[in-house]
């Protein structure tokens, strides 16, 4: 068996990040689909994924630190790359945690009477997933331009969040008997925004990785 070079080991780590990102993407999709289709049983799948994701996260962290310890990076940029892999690994895992919170809320929602009409969550979740793909891709390719583009284009998603929040509040007023159930969707908003803030953190890491400078463009949950 050929001995792996250091570069190959770094590439393997990047590949593992892509695997983890894909697992978490499935987790987010399941949690949103379970919510839209009012299927609490599907929320169980999210929980199944969570354990696998925690294992994968720990595995990547161990691999990355072992590489730093056994084949120390010579250049500052190499150390930044490995530090950034560690951080992005955790950001992705935290996105999985937020998906789990959404799954938990879905169980509460499904135990209460259904509300009239569909709450338009998919327009937000679709955009979040699109930004997630772009952010992961930008990190792997060390593509600062795409990362900067995502962080500078907050307006579109903020408008969607505003519309969504306004819709929920109007419904709460119109459907007082089910107002509490509708209000659970406000909590869902908090977790969706949290996922979005993790995506921005991933972009900020790409910025740090490629420039060596600390990001100052952090995304606050209260921006909306």
């Amino acid at each position, binding site marked *: 068996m050929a001995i792996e070079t250091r570069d190959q080991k770094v590439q393997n780590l990047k590949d593992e990040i892509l695997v983890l990102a894909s697992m978490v993407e499935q987790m987010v999709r399941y949690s949103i689909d379970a919510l839209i289709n009012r299927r609490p049983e599907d929320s169980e799948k999210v929980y199944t994924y969570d354990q696998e994701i925690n294992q994968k996260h720990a595995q990547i962290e161990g691999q990355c630190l072992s590489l*730093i*310890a056994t084949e120390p990076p010579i250049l500052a940029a190499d150390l930044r790359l490995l530090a950034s892999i560690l951080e992005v690994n955790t950001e992705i895992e935290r996105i999985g945690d937020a998906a789990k919170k959404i799954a938990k809320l879905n169980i509460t929602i499904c135990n209460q009477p259904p509300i009239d009409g569909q709450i338009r969550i998919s327009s937000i979740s679709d955009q979040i997933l699109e930004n997630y793909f772009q952010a992961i891709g930008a990190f792997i390719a060390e593509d600062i331009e795409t990362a900067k583009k995502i962080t500078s284009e907050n307006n579109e998603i903020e408008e969607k969040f505003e519309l969504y929040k306004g819709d929920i509040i109007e419904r709460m007023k119109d459907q007082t008997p089910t107002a*509490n159930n509708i209000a659970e969707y406000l*909590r869902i908003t908090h977790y969706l925004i949290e996922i979005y803030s993790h995506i921005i953190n991933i972009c900020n890491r790409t910025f740090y990785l490629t420039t060596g400078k600390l990001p100052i463009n952090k995304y606050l949950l209260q921006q909306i």
Partner: protein
Amino acid sequence: MTREPREAFEKMITSHMEEIQALSAMVEESIIKSVKTLVDQDLETAKTVYDLDQVINEKRYEIEQNTLVTVATQQPMASDLRKLSSVIDLAGELERIGDYAKGIARITMRIGKQPLLKNLDKIPEMAEITAVMLKRAVQAFIDLDEPAAMEIVDQDDQIDDRYNALYQELLDLMIADRKNIDQATFLLWVAHNLERAADRVTNICERVVFTTSGKLVEFDRSDDELEAF
């Protein structure tokens, strides 16, 4: 830089752990102060809490950099590597808790001087409990005290109870009068931030278990609730 003798290496590990304790103290103060500015409607101090976040971020990156240099130069094995990886992880968790405090300071500034909707007792209580949990969790990490870490997690119920009660009170206010909606939405964010800050403390406790035993545990009780479902 060359590999240090064992005693010197242990001093390096202790020094990184102390850096975590110093960062935690900044974050605890930030959480308490952010909520105090909200209750007192002290916009000037809110701005200082908001600005403190940049210092917390810089400290976090400094700890991360220093610790990784130790890993690269000292080539630690097994339990030492776990300690150092946990230092990096905790630095990240603390920075995120700092973000929640910054968010609360921002809300204080956005609410400004408009009269507060209600008595906000539960919010400072949540902040106090979170800060105490955080201090104890970081101490458990320094002491590598797994039983202490597991005890701290139980305190999260006190946060959840207050969060759920406050959530309901704010919803009632929103439903009762449309004029309350904007401020109540802001206050829901504050409650959410404190609840999430306490969740992050739980993550730190999980990390204490990992550091001492190498085991991955999940203290999120929502797993139990799912089984009940």
